[in-house]
């Protein structure tokens, strides 16, 4: 029975990872590969051609750099801003705290598409429309990460914090030396989640980019994936390159993330 379970598990894992396999094979094949009925599920020889197509039409390296810079900046700023807020709300009492909590909580229901134009108008009024800053600043708020960090703060012992106060430390020092170290790894995970979210961010960057300097990866992929075009091989290649850094980062960080003995 256990053996059957293990086999089933491996089948499930294989199925879950199938899209990655599909993309990896697809990026070495020509454009018609995905459409043919009797396709071979093995690597082809079109990798160079597909890559060449991308580099001939786009400044590929520049685009990757853009995505990297944007994602890193967003993740850094966002982690700080969101963590501080979650920490403050979890560990301290202040006026209107309940109201604020409610606000933040219900805002999880604001879908990006509903406020799309409103968001763009704000960005426009702030004068950052079309610039790199405009792709970073609007995405500092991430309610899921906020909730995650809020939950995390429960694992910081209030008693320890009290002890710190008795010893005469400032709140800031307490936060730095007592609270954060406890949940440091999980904060790094938040950073990672924010990085991923920014890396995959498509709609608003696409709308704002006009001169090509600020092209990011998702816009590139969307352009290649145009239903009218016939570049499936290149699309898969761009997808692979878009996914690869995330996988690498994830594997590196996974040790810190998946401690199941402690609560998530």
């Amino acid at each position: 029975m256990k053996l059957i379970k293990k086999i089933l598990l491996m089948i499930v894992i294989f199925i879950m990872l199938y899209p990655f396999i599909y993309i990896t094979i697809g990026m070495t094949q020509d454009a018609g590969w995905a459409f043919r009925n009797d396709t071979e599920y093995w690597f082809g020889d079109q990798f160079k051609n597909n890559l060449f197509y991308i580099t001939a039409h786009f400044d590929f390296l520049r685009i990757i750099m853009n995505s990297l810079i944007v994602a890193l900046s967003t993740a850094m700023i966002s982690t700080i801003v969101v963590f501080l807020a979650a920490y403050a709300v979890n560990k301290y009492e202040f006026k209107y705290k309940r109201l604020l909590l409610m606000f933040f909580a219900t805002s999880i229901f604001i879908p990006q598409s509903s406020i799309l134009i409103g968001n763009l108008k704000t960005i426009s009024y702030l004068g950052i429309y079309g610039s790199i800053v405009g792709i970073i600043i609007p995405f500092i708020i991430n309610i899921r990460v906020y909730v995650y960090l809020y939950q995390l703060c429960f694992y910081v012992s209030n008693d320890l914090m009290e002890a710190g106060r008795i010893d005469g430390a400032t709140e800031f020092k307490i936060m730095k030396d007592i609270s954060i170290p406890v949940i440091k790894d999980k904060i790094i995970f938040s950073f990672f989640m924010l990085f991923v979210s920014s890396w995959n961010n498509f709609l608003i960057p696409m709308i704002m980019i006009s001169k090509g300097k600020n092209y990011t990866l998702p816009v590139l992929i969307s352009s290649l994936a145009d239903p009218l075009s016939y570049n499936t091989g290149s699309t898969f290649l761009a997808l692979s390159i878009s996914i690869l850094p995330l996988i690498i980062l994830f594997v590196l960080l996974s040790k810190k993330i998946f401690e199941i003995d402690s609560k998530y």
Partner: protein
Amino acid sequence: MKKLILLFVFAGIIFSLSACGSEPVDLTIWAWNRNVDILIDAVERYKEEVDSEFNATVLSFSQGDIDTKFMAAKELNNPETMADVILVDSMKLRGYYDMWPEIFETFDISGDAAEKFVSSTIEVATINNKLVAMPYGIAPTYVFAYKPLWDTNVINDILENGWTWDEYKTVGLDIISNNTDKDVFMTAYNMRGDDRLYRTMTSQKGEWFMSRDIEVQVGNSNSLQAMSWVKDLYDSGVVGHIDTGDYKSMMINGQIAAQIQGFFLGGQIKSIGEDTSGDWILLPLPSWDENESSASITGGSYLYVNAFSDQTKGAKEFTEWYTLNADALVSGLEIGGIFPALLDAYEHEYFKQEDAFFGNQKYLEQVASNIHEAPAIFASKYNAYNYNQYILGQEDILFNDASIQDTLNEVKASILENAQE
């Protein structure tokens, strides 16, 4: 002292004169797909032949994304975020213009110049007596015939004498009954999402969903006739329904005898079906009646210039030069398979070539021979909505056996209602 001052003023004038007027033009151009390659080539040529200081960046966006950007720019009222020269599909042109007429820089090519293009393209791009975009490419619709499935005599007969839609069916039934080893169709496509057959037929009469004056054409006698042909062809198995994209693989698998599609299909099957080279031939479309022209243009693209750009002059010069330049356009055809809208281009040497893929047919000449006869079809700003409504109707008629007359009347009614709001 006076002399010094005069000298300075002189120098100042000379400097300012040299500064203004010699600002090099640096454009941003948006296009999708193969048009990007074509326009990059166009930019190179312009640099060589006209203005060596000229510079332009061609950015590739998917068509849907350009739509979104247009709409967002309109709503936010920041046209400066749009490119200087933008490619636009004929289906979207009128809609864009109605939404935002001010962004369209008008072109002033009257008289002779206007006649240089396939007339229907000028008709479509002339709105309120102004030419709002330069014709760039057209999509002549043709029949891509797979010879091994045919009787050669029939092919030759069609090439010489043409055929009608009724004959399309009889020929189709013949072919199917002669090729029973696998599923064969004359034409196959996604009949739940594509109006192509219907559109091809009505376009031959210069109709689609709405006329230039926003009169509904769905449900009129041509519409009913076209729809009954479509249904008949589907019911009899001559035309098949398949998921999106699969028809190309079916074509190179030898299962489609006479695919009706825009000209660009040739380039696509060439790239995925090299081993079927020589098995293809282009046949003219069936016509409504003998002695009627079968020419049909079911789509096209134009280049328009952003009137709010700060380089409108340079952009206009480039656009006009390019779209009127036969050599450049033919080069584009070679690179990206976009059929030019410029009549002069058809005189080019390139058109006289025999293509081995099409069994040494002078296929370009074939297409060019009657394309100027194709009537114009119009896409209003309601086109996206009309298309959706029509497709729902087509689905009902084909797959649920709904009454053609009633369904088309319903479609007409809902189109009318939407246009009133």
